[in-house]
């Protein structure tokens, strides 16, 4: 039991004021407690927060009609009187010394977020360039003084910065860039710097005055509309005398050097802790050079004229500090407060984005909704994915859609990531970075299927790709990529932020990371099949002789002892393996593994989970790699392959000079934006003809998988298939029961017969992709190509199809004889190019007129034509049976299919009640049959739903299961799952309206009856 548990179990709890933050887009110097982004003190009487699942069912049978899966907040706002005080005092000063070079000052180790930090540099000689500086954590910084420290102090230069400390900046380094090496920094006590003592930074706090008057003022470069803002005048100064005491006189020296700085002012909350006077902190004396001092203290702004709600939040009142801020962008958080024995305890009820701050009469309110819901309003167009070849589980589609909206189920790629393949149900990568694998295959020894579809398992984050080598079966998946001068150009996907080569003089430092499952691996089996290592990758360059490997990096997990290894090789004199002692356990658990190398340095290292090992140097020859990756390909071809015979997931390939020492993706803090589980439904093909709203795609997938969805209290997207609700965490009552004896008002109970459907027909798009290639575009309209030109045209395909845009992108030019005979070569795309517009001229060869596919989706192809001739040429012919152009592809055949299931017992009792559901994302009959059957099972009887009002408990969330009891009234009892919760707070009142559906306890295999429990996977 926690203190919060105890407090909420009390029949007379005490609520403390809630926390309401709205992160207006303002500089840090103007944020924090008591500033415009903390609206806690402006919380009015009432707040309403709603969270609900949409169960994804058709409208006629949904139990969550009216649900807003996006979550909404509506809270009354009052005006503003004044600011809250904050503690003001000194942090622990830090100081340091340095001679020449780039200067670095260390911040105090106890700096807290939003502290004002003063960083001072003193320069003995030279003229410095301070055009660039970097504050820890990107803390917003202003240069408040750069000049002479006054004749009385020797006329040396002092540079002082004021920063608003960003989170996590304690002990950080403030770097002053652009400092030449011959500059000397610091105060000295000897040599030519004799008579110079310690160095102090002082802050003089003057009388409170009106520092911003009229309608606007400037704080840290931000022009803010204000009226009568008061604050303390704070002035900066330094001293280097031997007494190390900052005095007003010494402070005045700075001011006299630059009188305009008399107006340097910080707005400081009035408090009894600090008053008028001079406050100094002094560096340690006795070192030869001392150049920097970092001190800091909390800072908030002073009081101002009070405003009521209409004045403060009016978009027309220029005296309001928030008048100019957008009212639909600021992040918003709402925490409900409960008094516990450990003090106030806050529970997050809402995270999202402001949607409006309407002013009505004399009051105002803040409305907010899910930021993730808004992010998913983005229009996205998934890539063309062939399910039978690459896999197209609906989980992959969702994962890809979420990533396009900035959300991620698994750790996001770094700026150096050139390739990221989460393997969440498809081999198709999320980030190609010029490395999109252009051939994939899966070998499954069962039935000796050489090119089966990849298989999927539950992964460390969502899904993983299956692999196996056992006494009875081998499943090996192969990813391959190759580029040569004759193929599509090798380009880096700069949009993915991958500016570095992989294996060249420009960069030869890379890292491959992934998660693998510790499955057993049998080296020797009784049958033939692929051999190799459980995990094996190759990146290599061949020159024009394919067998001649010039440079090769091989990495993987060795089959004999499961150790991680790397090989750097030129296949001749320098061919060296390094085997680490890191061994993949055979425990069936997921492990993070990573290999890093630097070819030029000859260094390699490996990592698994928390441990890492590095080799001694492996000899390599720089000359074995060319100047650039592009040069590589011009001289031969470059290839990259990966083979897996154990399950793997989330592959990252990073390139760049810093990736060898960069933090591993496993070790970078990650918090998933999504809560979901693998889906059991797959697609034959993902082929969206046009871009669609991402949320709409998710809604359609929910219907096709009978999943529920919402954004939760932390603004994560929860996408929950039926199996999710069968998990122990979702079937075990977590909180106290809802009981009319103790905390529940009389319930509204409904055993709803109106949703009964015992005969369900699912209409779906029964789809197949022909494995044999056919002509998917037969084009017989003349195309005119200007002389010596490149022409790019896009054509709609005659039928939805998959085109091979990488290995077969080029067109064959038909000859006059082929045209006359009506003979079209098998297995090629072709053009007929002619000198005359009617096709009666001379037919062109591919050296004269050529065509190449440069882009395609399921319904169109983009072709680049090149006419090298000096005259206009035409795509045309004078034959009778030959199109002018033909494009070969794998046709996608889609027909409307129907599956009907029914429940005879229900029909016998109530007669036939039919539901016709059109589910566009179902493409396979077995999936449609499964969904139809599930719908029938769910709907053949009356739906039990209930709405209750309960005494509030901020820990309740939709999806939780509660024990409900109304022994004295309706006799309602049993387990119920909340589908929607509305929190109503009004002064001391805190109640919740909860909509619930009946549920059953979790099933136990071999013990439970099928229809009496809830099952998970």
């Amino acid at each position, binding site marked *: 039991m926690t203190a919060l548990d105890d407090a909420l179990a009390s029949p007379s709890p005490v609520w403390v004021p809630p926390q309401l933050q709205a992160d207006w887009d303002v500089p840090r110097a103007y944020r924090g407690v008591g500033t415009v982004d903390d609206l806690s003190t402006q919380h009015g009487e009432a707040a309403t927060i709603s969270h609900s699942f949409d169960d994804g069912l058709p409208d006629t049978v949904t139990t969550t009609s009216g649900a807003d899966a996006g979550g909404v907040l509506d809270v009354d706002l009052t005006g503003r*009187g004044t*600011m809250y005080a904050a503690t003001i005092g*000194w942090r622990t000063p830090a100081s340091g010394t340095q001679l020449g070079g780039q200067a670095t000052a260390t911040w105090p180790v106890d700096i807290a977020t939003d502290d004002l930090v003063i960083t001072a540099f003193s320069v003995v000689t030279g003229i410095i360039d301070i055009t660039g500086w970097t504050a820890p954590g990107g803390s917003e910084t202003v240069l408040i003084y750069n000049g002479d420290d006054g004749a009385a102090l020797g006329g040396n230069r002092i540079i002082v910065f004021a920063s608003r400390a960003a989170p996590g900046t304690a002990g950080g380094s403030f770097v002053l860039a652009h400092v030449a090496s011959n500059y000397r920094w610091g105060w000295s006590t000897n040599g030519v710097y004799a008579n110079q003592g310690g160095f102090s930074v002082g802050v003089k706090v003057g009388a409170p005055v009106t520092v911003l008057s009229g309608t606007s003022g400037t704080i840290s470069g931000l022009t803010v509309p204000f009226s009568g803002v008061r604050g303390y005048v704070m002035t900066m100064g330094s001293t280097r005398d031997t007494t190390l005491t900052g005095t007003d006189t010494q402070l005045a020296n700075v001011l006299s050097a630059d009188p305009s700085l008399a107006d340097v002012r910080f707005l400081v909350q009035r408090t*009894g802790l600090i*008053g008028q006077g001079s406050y100094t902190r002094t560096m340690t004396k006795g070192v030869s050079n001392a150049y920097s001092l970092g001190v800091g203290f909390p800072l908030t702004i002073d009081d101002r004229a009070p405003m009521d709600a209409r004045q403060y939040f009016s978009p027309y009142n220029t005296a309001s500090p928030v008048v100019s801020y957008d009212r639909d962008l600021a992040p918003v958080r709402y925490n409900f407060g409960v008094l516990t024995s450990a003090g106030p305890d806050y529970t997050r009820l809402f995270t999202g984005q402001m949607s409006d701050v309407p002013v009505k009469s004399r009051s105002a309110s803040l409305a907010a909704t899910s930021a993730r819901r808004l992010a998913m309003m983005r229009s996205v167009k998934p890539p063309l994915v062939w399910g039978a070849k690459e896999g197209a589980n609906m989980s992959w589609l969702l994962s890809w859609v979420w990533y396009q909206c900035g959300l991620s189920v698994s750790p996001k790629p770094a700026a150096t990531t050139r390739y990221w393949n989460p393997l969440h149900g498809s081999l198709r990568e999320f980030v190609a970075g010029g490395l999109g694998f252009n051939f994939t295959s899966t070998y499954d020894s069962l039935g000796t299927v050489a090119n089966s579809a990849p298989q999927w398992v539950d992964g460390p984050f969502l899904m993983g790709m299956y692999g196996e080598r056992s006494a009875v079966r081998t499943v090996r998946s192969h990813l391959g990529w190759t580029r040569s001068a004759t193929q599509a150009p090798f380009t880096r996907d700069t949009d993915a932020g991958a500016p570095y080569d992989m294996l060249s003089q420009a960069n030869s430092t890379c890292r491959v990371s992934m998660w693998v499952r510790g499955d057993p691996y049998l080296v020797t089996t009784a049958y033939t099949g692929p051999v190799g290592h459980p995990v094996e990758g190759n990146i290599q360059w061949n020159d024009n002789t394919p067998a001649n490997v010039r440079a090769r990096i091989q990495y993987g997990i060795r089959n004999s002892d499961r150790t991680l290894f790397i090989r750097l090789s030129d296949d001749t004199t320098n061919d060296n393996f390094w085997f680490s002692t890191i061994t993949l356990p055979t425990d069936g658990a997921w492990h993070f593994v990573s290999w890093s190398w630097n070819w030029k340095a000859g260094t390699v290292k490996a990592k698994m989970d928390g441990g890492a090992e590095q080799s001694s140097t492996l000899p390599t020859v720089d000359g074995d790699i060319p100047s650039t990756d592009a040069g590589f390909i011009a001289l031969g071809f470059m290839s990259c392959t990966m083979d897996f015979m154990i399950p793997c997931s989330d592959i990252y390939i990073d390139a760049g000079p810093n990736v060898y020492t960069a933090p591993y993706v496993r070790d970078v803090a990650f918090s998933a934006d999504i809560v979901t589980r693998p889906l059991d439904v797959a697609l034959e093909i993902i082929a969206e003809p046009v871009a669609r709203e991402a949320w709409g795609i998710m809604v359609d997938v929910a219907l096709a998988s009978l999943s529920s969805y919402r954004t939760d209290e932390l603004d994560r997207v929860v996408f929950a298939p039926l199996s999710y609700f069968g998990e122990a965490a979702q079937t075990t009552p977590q909180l106290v029961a809802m009981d009319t*004896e103790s905390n529940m008002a009389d319930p509204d109970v409904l055993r709803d017969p109106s949703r009964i459907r015992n005969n369900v027909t699912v209409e779906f798009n029964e789809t197949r992709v022909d494995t044999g290639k056919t002509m998917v575009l037969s084009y017989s309209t003349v195309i005119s190509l200007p002389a010596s030109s490149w022409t790019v045209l896009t054509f709609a395909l005659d039928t939805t199809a998959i085109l091979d845009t990488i290995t077969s992108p080029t067109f064959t030019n038909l000859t006059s004889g082929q045209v006359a005979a009506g003979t079209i070569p098998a297995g090629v795309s072709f053009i007929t190019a002619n000198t005359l517009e009617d096709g009666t001229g001379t037919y062109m060869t591919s050296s004269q007129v050529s065509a190449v596919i440069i882009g395609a989706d399921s319904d169109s192809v983009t072709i680049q034509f090149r006419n090298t001739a000096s005259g206009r040429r035409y795509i045309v012919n004078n034959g009778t049976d030959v199109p002018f152009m033909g494009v070969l592809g794998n046709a996608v055949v889609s027909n409307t299919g129907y599956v009907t299931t029914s429940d005879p017992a229900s029909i016998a009792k109530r007669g036939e009640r039919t539901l016709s559901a059109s589910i566009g994302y179902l493409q396979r009959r077995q999936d449609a049959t499964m969904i139809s059957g599930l719908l029938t099972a769910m709907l053949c009887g009356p739906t039990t739903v209930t709405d209750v009002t309960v005494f509030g408990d901020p820990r309740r969330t939709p999806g939780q299961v509660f024990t409900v009891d109304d022994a*004295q009234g309706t006799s309602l009892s049993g387990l119920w799952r909340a589908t929607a919760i509305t929190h109503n707070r009004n002064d001391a009142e805190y109640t919740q309206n909860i909509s619930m559906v009946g549920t059953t306890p979790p099933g136990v295999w071999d013990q439970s009856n099928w229809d009496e429990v809830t099952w998970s996977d």
Partner: protein
Amino acid sequence: MAPRVGRYEPPVYFGAPGALVQLPWPRSGINTPYERQIFDFLTGSGGHRVSSLIGGSRQYGVNWDALHQTTFDRINQYWLGTMGPGPFVFIDPSRPNMLSPNQSAASSVWNDTTGFGKFSDADGYITSNSNMTHVHRPGGTRSIRWQHTNSPAWTPFPGMLLKTEYPTWPGIPFVAGLPYTFSFWVKPMDDVGTSQVAAKIFWLDSTGAEVSNTTSGDITVTGGVWTRLSVTTTSAPALPSMFMEARVLCVASTLTAGMSFYIDEVMLEQSATLNDWAPGAGIQPVAMTQWSEDVPWVDAMFRVSPGLVLREVVG
């Protein structure tokens, strides 16, 4: 200590801090409920659960039998807006403890140190103690624990202060010339010897800057023994002093690293004598919400049954 002595028809005070006007004791009494928001939830079986907000607000209903027009206008000038928009302050000297509920009850309301502060980061750690062996108030559940670790190094006189709840005020408004007493019980932890602690009242100007202070002197307190410290003083002249603030200071040279003080039953009262502890509800700014004016038929220079209603407001 004796029970509080009677106060017969004491004047009350109204206006802005530092500029209070004296008003005669309202002969028809003052209605001063400290109102807390309460919600009574009725369960389906007829049971109840009651929730409340942690804070509250006092409404003052001040009723005179009659006021001469001169006195009436002292109040009327605020109602008419001629003294600015407010908020103002109403001081009823009969209020036994001017500190907030959490301050007076040594953290028993919030279960944390809301309302308590330190002079500097070097002045130790202030927490809410729930070990009832270190609580002085009979039946009390909490006291303040003030621990001194000497890291960072102590200031010569580590100080704890009792901050006002209303952020615009640097302290609590006071009536010039009246006596005030600040008191608290303090116990050093059991296994230390003696230490020295002082009770102080600081007089502050409008900005919060110290004008002067009055101290009890450094009183020696013994480990494991509860001692009541107090300081009684007549307040400073009205200007430049406008506010007062109660503070507890100890003498660093008498501290042992790691030792704690427990403090309980904190009280700041307008009184010349040290009285028994009473809970406080704080001194909050008020806004005028009602003011009546009835002219009698006999003498138009009087107003009969004038009623003033004030509501404490938040910052």
